[in-house]
């Protein structure tokens, strides 16, 4: 991570291992193609982050 931060001059706020990043992608996007999709309100989206255990200040919407 230090190498990436040095190369990009950016600071990483959160780091997820692949499997957890995938779980977040699944819960976040699983209904994106659904014919019943509608815009989500903040508590719904926060619930998806919580579902995969992302509850720190960094993940607060």
């Amino acid at each position, binding site marked *: *991570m230090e*190498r*990436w931060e040095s*190369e990009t001059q*950016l*600071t*990483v*706020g*959160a*780091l*997820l*291992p*692949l*499997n957890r*990043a*995938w779980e*977040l*992608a*699944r819960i*976040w*996007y*699983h209904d*994106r*193609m659904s*014919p019943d*999709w*509608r*815009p989500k309100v903040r508590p719904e989206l926060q619930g998806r*982050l919580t579902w995969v255990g992302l509850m720190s*200040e*960094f*993940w*607060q*919407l």
Partner: protein
Amino acid sequence: MSAVYGPVEHAVRSQIYKCFVDTGQAPTVEEVAAAVGLDEEEVGSVLESLNELHAIVLKRGTRQIERALPFSALPTSHLARVGGRQYWANCAWDALGIPAALNADGEIRSDGFAGGDTVHLEIRDGRALGDPIYMGFVVPARQWWHDIGFT
């Protein structure tokens, strides 16, 4: 946020996603208008509403569709291949979002890792396979929509 998501917005959004899935590209206002049976001015207004609702992303100050997350119309270094088609994603994590959204197996190639390394991942039977990488998130969630192109 005052925009309303009704049947017209739903039809336009659905057409945009259909175009992304079928072609990997965003449709133009003219193409959406022809597909949903509205005039271009109506479609343009709906696009602005969808942008306000964070249902799509327009190029700032225009009615040009840049993204319908996790899909990107802009070429990036984050690619997902699903069902024989190739799609650009905004970031490595959004590339994972493409097989997730399509509920399909897929392959990911991302050039955004340390040292310029290219990472290859595979989604198979609902599991992510590949090198034991970590994905870094730079922007706190509350600020994502300040510039959704950079998160």
